[in-house]
């Protein structure tokens, strides 16, 4: 295309720059693009997009943890998630094998205990291990076990799962015998006991939190020369975690939300681009040729436009179980009707213009007239139409996902909302799972609505004021 073909776009841009909300929309779009580009840098779990449904990837996270910033608004602070790596593992001779020792300090200064504390040890071969949880007041509980096996593997000691009997006994020393009778090791919250003052009421989470540095002392006796302790790490699964908390599958929602941004942009832009290009060419062709071609094309258009969109997409998805790309194709099949009617009426006007007649007189082919003289005129309208159909495409994908028919191998906002809705997050009040994906959809919709409405205002200057 030659330079002059863009003159219309250039004049449109100079007008666009003066519309405030249009520029806001453009800035938001820029922000979304930047977010997609720097995705690995801003999320704590960069593999979220590919391992969203892989339970092992999320194992160390807390379940249903609130966002970290909730602490700013509550009088009782939740312990946030943390990871403490041991910097030095001391090893020494011990009979035929070796004795490994490590200390992991954890500074605790919150009001509500974390939901779990897990000691992860990476060992090779046979090992007998002992973990001593030493509290700031000097008291401690100990856990011992022997693990036999070949090869290198992770061993996990979870306070919530493994230390219940020890902590029940520990708190029992300060508790009324009657309270002991009415409770059992499996009904108490071991974390609350570990992080509370050793006094009466600790068993029922009735005593004050005990602040200070907790130390986990790890001793591993490796039975023979081939066995060893390679790594020790303390994983605190907090009551709050990250920017947006976690869901009931322990997944980090911020990572999921950012991973979904890319798909929202792909779905929205690809669908609207293909649909509008097809629609514009269809409308121009229909308007330009007229007569039999026009009425035939009109009939086909009417068939497509009188089918209710979401129901047919739902039934097609239920029957054909589409991947995300097929779903985009399915949406394109019905989205192209959007601009047809307007484009056709514009084309009917343009085709009467004298320069079209002149072009025809000079022997230009129909194809050339359509492509070189008519379609370029429609580019501004096409852009506005594209921008305005992006939100629709995103919402349709989210809707199909919500009903459970989406592409389950991708992380889209709709998929996150589907998981939230089907596991009852709405009625359990897990707002940090329901609100952000919807806000993201709304924000993305708003972005393109701002851009589209701004272009619409330029194309219809009569509508600005009276």
């Amino acid at each position: 295309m030659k330079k002059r073909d863009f003159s219309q776009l250039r004049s449109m841009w100079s007008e666009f720059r003066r519309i405030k909300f249009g520029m806001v929309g453009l800035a938001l779009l820029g922000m979304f693009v930047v977010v997609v580009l720097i995705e690995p840098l801003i999320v704590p779990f960069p593999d979220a997009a590919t391992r969203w449904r892989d339970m092992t990837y999320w194992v160390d996270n807390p379940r249903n943890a609130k966002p970290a910033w909730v602490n700013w608004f509550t009088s009782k602070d939740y312990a946030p998630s943390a990871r403490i790596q041991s910097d030095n593992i001391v090893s020494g001779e011990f009979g035929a094998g070796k004795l490994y020792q490590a200390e992991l300090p954890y500074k605790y200064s919150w009001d509500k205990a974390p939901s779990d504390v897990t000691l992860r040890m990476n060992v090779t071969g046979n090992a007998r291990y002992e973990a001593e949880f030493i509290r700031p007041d000097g008291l401690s509980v100990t856990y011992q076990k022997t693990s036999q096996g070949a090869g290198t593997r992770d061993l996990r000691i979870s306070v919530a799962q493994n230390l219940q009997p020890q902590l029940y006994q520990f708190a029992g020393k300060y508790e009324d015998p009657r309270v002991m009778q009415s409770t059992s090791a499996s009904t108490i919250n071991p974390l609350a006991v570990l992080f509370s003052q050793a006094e009466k009421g600790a068993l029922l989470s009735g005593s004050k939190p005990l602040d200070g540095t907790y130390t986990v002392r790890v001793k591993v006796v490796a039975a023979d020369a081939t066995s060893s302790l390679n790594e020790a790490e303390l994983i605190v699964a907090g009551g709050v975690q990250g920017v947006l908390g976690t869901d009931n599958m322990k997944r980090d929602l911020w990572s999921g939300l950012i991973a979904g941004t890319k798909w929202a942009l792909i779905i929205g832009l690809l669908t609207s681009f293909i649909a509008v290009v097809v629609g514009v060419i269809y409308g121009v062709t229909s308007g330009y040729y007229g007569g039999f071609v026009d009425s035939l094309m009109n009939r086909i258009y009417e068939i497509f436009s009188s089918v209710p969109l979401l129901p047919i997409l739902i039934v097609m998805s239920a029957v054909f179980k589409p991947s995300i790309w097929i779903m985009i194709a399915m949406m394109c099949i019905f989205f192209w009707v959007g601009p047809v009617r307007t484009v056709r009426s514009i084309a009917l006007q343009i085709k009467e213009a004298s320069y079209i007649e002149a072009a025809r007189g000079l022997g230009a082919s129909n194809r050339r007239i359509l492509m070189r003289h008519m379609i370029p005129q429609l580019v501004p309208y096409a852009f506005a139409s594209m921008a305005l159909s992006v939100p629709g495409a995103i919402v349709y994908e989210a809707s199909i996902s919500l009903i459970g028919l989406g592409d389950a191998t991708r992380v889209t906002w709709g998929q996150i909302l589907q998981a939230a809705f089907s596991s009852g997050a709405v009625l359990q009040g897990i707002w940090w799972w329901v609100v952000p994906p919807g806000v993201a959809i709304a924000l993305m919709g708003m972005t393109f609505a701002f851009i589209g409405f701004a272009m619409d205002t330029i194309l219809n200057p009569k509508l600005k004021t009276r």
Partner: protein
Amino acid sequence: MYAKYVGKRILYAVIMYAVIIFIFSALFNTVAETVMRTQIQETMRAYRQGLSADRRLSGEQVSAMAAARQEELYDQYRLNEPVVTRILSRTFDTLFFRFGDSTIVRSSAGESDVWTIISEAIPRTLLIFLTAIAIDIVLGVALGLYKARKAGSVMDRATDIGTMVVFGLPAWWVGMMAIMVFAFIWPVFPSSGMHSAPPPTSSLGYFLDLLWHLTLPVLTLVVLGFWGRAYLTRNVVLTTLQEDFIMSARARGLTERKILFGHTLRSAAPPIVTMTLLALLGSVAGSILFEGIFSWPGMGNLYWVAVGLNDIPVLMGNLAVTTMLYMAGLVILDLIYGFLDPRIKVSGKA
């Protein structure tokens, strides 16, 4: 003249509907027949068991009778005929509301006939959406007129922003939020369903209970919907206000009120009505997920149930009925337009 127009429009819509149903039948032929074969197999298993229980029959007799019965069933469901005949016959069945039997979903009386199941749901869906539409139009047109009169003002621009903000908002998500706020955090409305369990016995109590359950979903739809209506009304009215006859009315010294309601609204009405109804029709079809969020037992909820249980016959029947209602809406729209616009009433052309 208008009667001729009406007749033509309806006939045309019926032909279109038949074409669309034919396309659906062809598109979903394979899956529909798979379901039928499974249903026949079920019947055959029961039939064979019945025969084997009869000690007077030998093994050969049993298999011969079973084969005959299977053939009979295949004939009955037209599975022995060529593909084209099968698709055509299914098209006709669908056109006459013979959707067959559901696989799992049952009507409230326990019947498995798909049409019975769907026809139960239709009035419930109409109730919720017609209520919402009525409120929506009144609010939207009122705000739109106001915006047009004060075009360019702060209020006008602020509500424009409102329109854009709700533009890409999925109704079902707003429904979720409404449930979370008004049924969980501050429980003033029920979170789901159409009636309390058990429903009140007195008819007034029953009605009030229904109204109470209706409030939250209708409120959500209206709050989302009327912005778009206002924006549209504003634009149509504003375009009309710039016409010459309005200027001449002004020159004659008519009051602004008279110009707005007597002249402008009269000529702006047809596009406002059609575009409003068209947008609403789109939102009705688009809001079918909305019913699922509120467990409102209408046609939208039926999609959820049928998808959840993978009940293909119900899904297809529901699609056919939804399409029919949607097209009926389009026809009504055209008829109203024709009625309001005298040019169409007289010439009989759309």
